[in-house]
């Protein structure tokens, strides 16, 4: 039984009833309803409780500006907090509950807060809860519980969200008469157009009334216009698409809701996304975002049943739902007179129109007079009755000053009150685009001033409220936008509508009443959503919070989920009033994106879960997977950390792998190592700049270790570079720095060394690298190649040879990161797996053992080799690392050289790389452990360094560590302490080299 449903009219489909539940009670609405219109049709008056005082609240608006009807919607993976009933399209089975009240909005225990509201003026929390200090967290617990509105969903999101880029000549924001006119004109001119409108149905305000265009029903014009637009291949219509944000260079984000109106989807997921975020680059933008009606500020203006007049029209005309049986209109302008006419036409008793103006004029006023509705000019609503639903109002005449009353109140019975305080253009997007606002004193609102980007505002958002003007401006905007993009098609003529003169508006920041604002029991709300009253604004001013930003922040004006769409301007007007200033002097706070809230899931899109980050894999990845490798990530690369055998944990597996390399031969996937091909006659000149050592003497076929510094003298990367030919080098970088080192050199070449003849090519992915290491590596390689002389003389350490390995063309580097005889066999990536398999097969008789990155770390630490991100952390110089030998004394300059002689660089107490051997050999220090010279009983204990690498060395049968220690080299031999969480460990400082100090194994 939809008590307040009109028997006919509106855009709803009465043949399609939909069942839904609100606060546990079943109701019925129709297809085409919003939850709000269905609730209204069912005469549900209290839909929620207010944020701070828990006052009962009803539906106020019909659109995005609704401050009260926020609901908890759906359940499980489809649950949503703070959904706005005016934006929820009704679907069968919809289940919603009011937020911020318990147990129900009709009986809410939180309302007790309202009883103490006198103690809770704006900013009360700044003045109290300070004593006793310990109790703040308790106070805060209750403050937090009281705050917030809906509940965050607990279940994982069942939906997926899509994002995409889009490009167009003209983006039109808003599908009302102005927006449609603009899109039509631009589309006819041949423009690529995107028209986005937040509503399910295009037409804007035309849907809420019955105005005529081109001498026929306005909605017929809408239908024809949409038909024409849909027939244009380059026009894209995005209903349910809210233009959320306007960024620099005409870049805008549009959030399109795809399935919300259908309810939970059985096949929710990437194949049926819930919403789509459009990232639009538009050559021109037409803003046709309409206007929001202002409320009037009077005593208890928040009672359920008090609604915006335009919203009343929307509910009557678009949804066939009436707010009640008897309604009064309260206005300061002409527009609400149309509401009165619509109300009367819908069979609502309209006992009076209360008008703040002494002498209302204009067409609509005349019509109302003719209709016989009483007009109470120069009157104000001074009190309202009915906390949980309006029962009546008192009205009184206003005195000539406009500040007080001139007669006794008179009571009028009614169950709703349609209020209009004029209209605010929706300048949100314009303001986001950095456009400057002007204040229009006639309309008493801010309107777009100078545009900053390629943008044009048209229609109500431009302060043009009449239909004729909207159509004309929209058309003109579409024409000029198309022209600006160089299009020459014929845009056609603008549609026309009757121009209906309107009377002026009477601006009253607060309506005079029985008591001054803040004195009586009544509250005068400027921001219903955040429970901010005119008295709060006055208090802020009294306390010196006079700037608009101070007042906003002190009172929380406009900071609720509606972001002040209703309350903002109303509050600024109250502020101007309190300050005795003009609106332009007060100004506005900044309009921040988004226009309406957008799910984080939609902003994240598909870059979550398995697609969060690209997992880069090597050509041998599949082999590692089937071998049961445990993976670790290095940047985006996935690499085997170790290959556990049956029953092995990481520790055991890594020890086995290490010993296999030291005792026989191991095999490792080295493909991720950065590889940069360097060609050209000036290659050496470049290498001499980017590395600390000299490169002129390197022979073809030989390799050299290099250290790369930033201009600040800090080590950025190290690696081995080989000379492949006369003017041809191959640089190896660490895995993580492959791209960085490439760009570093390119930057210098392109910016500074313009005359250098050098080409760089990243060849990291071209080559698969199979590294075999261990005393049997040569024997193994000998099984696989016939055309490379592997003898130590012919192919010494730090050299490179070409040939075939397992019949595959290969480049073999004899280089080592393990301290063992080691070959890195490079083949075209496509042959990587084949090579790996061939080496594994041939290696069987040598007991070949795959080893992962953890074993590599153990082995390199035994040799004191450096790891990026551990020893090399951006704060160490080559001298700190003991790399003096790699710094050329002969070169006049290299990148970073000058920095090395600065005073702080040559201090003897800089942290230097040392080795660390625990007194108890079984203790493996945690990496990151801090080192203490002089132990104290309790903190603070000064530290002298920290552990950068720490492992158990199976070959040495004890733990080893590398560390950076202040003045460390001079302290070698000293004992230091490492106070760990559970005990303090003593260790001796040593040289950072634990195994094969003479390097015999390398050169074996």
């Amino acid at each position, binding site marked *: 039984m939809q008590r307040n449903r009109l028997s006919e009219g509106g855009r709803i489909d009465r043949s399609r009833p939909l069942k839904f539940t609100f606060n546990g009670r079943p109701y019925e609405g129709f297809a085409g309803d919003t939850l709000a219109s269905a609730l209204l049709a069912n005469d549900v008056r209290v839909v929620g409780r207010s944020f701070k005082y828990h006052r009962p609240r009803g539906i106020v608006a019909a659109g995005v500006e609704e401050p009260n009807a926020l609901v908890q919607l759906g359940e499980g993976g489809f649950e949503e907090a703070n959904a706005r009933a005016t934006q929820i399209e009704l679907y069968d089975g919809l289940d919603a509950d009011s937020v911020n009240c318990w147990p129900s909005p009709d009986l809410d225990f939180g309302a007790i807060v309202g009883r103490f509201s006198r103690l809770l003026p704006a900013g009360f929390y700044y003045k109290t809860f300070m004593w006793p200090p310990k109790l703040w967290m308790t106070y805060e617990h209750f403050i937090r519980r009281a705050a917030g509105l809906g509940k965050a969903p607990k279940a994982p999101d069942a939906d997926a969200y899509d994002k995409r880029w889009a490009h167009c000549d003209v983006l039109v924001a808003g599908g009302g008469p102005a927006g449609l006119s603009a899109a039509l004109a631009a589309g006819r001119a041949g423009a690529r157009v995107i028209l986005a409108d937040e509503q399910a149905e295009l037409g804007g305000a035309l849907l809420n009334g019955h105005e005529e265009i081109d001498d026929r029903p306005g909605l017929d014009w809408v239908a024809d216009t949409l038909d024409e637009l849909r027939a244009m291949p380059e026009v894209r219509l995005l209903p349910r698409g809210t233009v959320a944000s306007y960024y620099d260079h005409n870049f805008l984000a549009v959030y399109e809701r795809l399935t919300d109106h259908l309810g939970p989807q059985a096949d929710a997921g990437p194949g049926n996304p819930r919403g789509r975020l459009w990232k639009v*680059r538009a050559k021109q933008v037409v803003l046709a975002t309409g206007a929001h009606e202002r409320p009037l500020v009077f005593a208890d203006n928040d009672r359920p049943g008090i609604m915006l007049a335009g919203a009343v029209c929307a509910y009557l005309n678009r949804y066939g739902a009436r707010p009640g049986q008897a309604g009064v209109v309260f206005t300061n302008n002409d527009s609400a007179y149309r509401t009165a006419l619509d109300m009367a036409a819908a069979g609502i008793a309209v006992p009076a129109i209360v008008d703040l103006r002494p002498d209302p004029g204009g067409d609509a006023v005349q019509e109302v007079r003719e209709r016989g509705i009483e007009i109470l000019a120069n009157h104000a609503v001074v009190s309202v009755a009915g906390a949980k639903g309006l029962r009546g109002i008192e009205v009184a005449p206003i005195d000539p000053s406009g500040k007080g009353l001139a007669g006794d109140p008179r009571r009028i019975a009614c169950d709703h009150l349609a209020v209009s305080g004029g209209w605010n253009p929706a300048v949100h997007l314009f303001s986001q685009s950095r456009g400057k606002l002007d204040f229009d004193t006639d309309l008493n609102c801010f309107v777009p001033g100078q545009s*900053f980007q390629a943008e044009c505002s048209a229609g109500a958002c431009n302060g043009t409220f009449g239909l004729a003007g909207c159509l004309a401006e929209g058309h003109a905007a579409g024409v000029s936008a198309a022209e600006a993009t160089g299009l020459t098609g014929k845009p056609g003529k603008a549609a026309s509508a009757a121009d209906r003169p309107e009377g002026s508006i009477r601006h009253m920041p607060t309506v005079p009443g029985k008591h001054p604002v803040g004195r009586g029991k009544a509250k005068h709300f400027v921001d219903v959503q955040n429970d901010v009253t005119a008295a709060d604004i006055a208090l802020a001013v009294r306390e010196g919070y006079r700037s608009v930003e101070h007042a906003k922040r002190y009172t929380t004006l406009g900071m609720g989920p509606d972001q002040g769409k209703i309350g903002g301007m109303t509050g600024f007007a109250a502020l101007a009033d309190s300050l005795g200033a003009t609106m332009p002097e007060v100004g506005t706070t900044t309009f921040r994106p988004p226009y309406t809230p957008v799910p984080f899931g939609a902003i994240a899109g598909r870059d979550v879960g398995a697609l969060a980050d690209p997992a880069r894999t090597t050509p041998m990845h599949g082999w590692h997977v089937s071998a049961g490798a445990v993976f670790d990530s290095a940047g985006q690369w996935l690499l085997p950390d170790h290959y556990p055998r049956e029953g092995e944990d990481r520790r055991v597996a890594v020890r086995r792998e290490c010993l296999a390399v030291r005792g026989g031969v191991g095999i490792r996937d080295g493909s991720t190592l950065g590889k940069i091909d360097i060609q050209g006659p000036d290659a050496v000149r470049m290498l001499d700049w980017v590395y600390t050592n000299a490169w002129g003497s390197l022979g073809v076929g030989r390799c050299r270790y290099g250290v790369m510094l930033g201009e600040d003298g800090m080590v950025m990367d190290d690696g081995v570079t080989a000379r492949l030919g006369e003017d041809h080098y191959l640089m190896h970088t660490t895995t993580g720095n492959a791209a960085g080192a490439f760009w570093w050199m390119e930057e210098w070449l392109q910016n500074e060394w313009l005359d250098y003849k050098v080409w760089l090519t990243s060849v990291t992915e071209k080559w698969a690298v199979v590294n075999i290491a261990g005393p049997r590596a040569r024997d193994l390689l000998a099984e696989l190649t016939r055309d490379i002389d592997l003898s130590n003389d012919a192919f010494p350490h730090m050299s490179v040879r070409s040939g075939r390995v397992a019949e595959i063309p290969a480049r073999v580097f004899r280089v080592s990161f393990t301290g063992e005889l080691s070959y890195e066999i490079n083949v075209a990536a496509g042959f990587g797996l084949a090579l790996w398999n061939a080496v594994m097969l041939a290696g069987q008789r040598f007991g070949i053992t795959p080893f992962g990155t953890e074993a590599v770390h153990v082995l390199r630490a035994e040799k004191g080799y450096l790891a990026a991100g551990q020893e090399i952390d951006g704060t160490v110089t080559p001298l700190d690392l003991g790399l003096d030998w790699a710094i050329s004394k002969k070169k006049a300059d290299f990148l970073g*050289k*000058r920095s090395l002689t600065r005073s702080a660089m040559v201090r003897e107490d800089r942290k230097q790389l040392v080795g660390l051997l625990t007194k108890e050999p079984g203790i493996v220090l945690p990496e990151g452990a801090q080192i203490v010279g002089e132990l104290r009983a309790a903190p603070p204990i000064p530290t002298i360094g920290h552990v950068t690498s720490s492992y158990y060395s199976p070959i040495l049968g004890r733990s080893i560590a590398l560390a950076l220690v202040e003045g460390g080299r001079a302290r070698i031999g000293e004992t230091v302490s490492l106070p760990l969480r559970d005990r303090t460990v003593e260790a001796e400082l040593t040289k950072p080299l634990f195994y094969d100090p003479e390097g015999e194994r390398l050169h074996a």
Partner: protein
Amino acid sequence: MLLIECPFCGPRAEVEFRCSGEGHIARPETPENISDEAWADYVYMRTNPKGLHFERWMHQHGCRRWFCVARDTVTHKIRAIYKLGEAKPALDEPKTEGEGA
């Protein structure tokens, strides 16, 4: 998000680029002959203007070329784009407009 006219590839979205910071910073010719302060000026000090800024960008996900951009650090309007090695264009200092704080 900026739309940047790569001098080689044409207008592209900001996400394809990387900003390399202030441009026209000359590396000292003979670093060994200058003071620590002068060297620090080159390495660390920056003009950091509010308004017109001459900087270098690189089309990282496109042609991988560096080029010069004169950009307003308040409005983000791009005033000029030119190739490396070309002289700074003569541009008026902007009025600080369009900062919608």
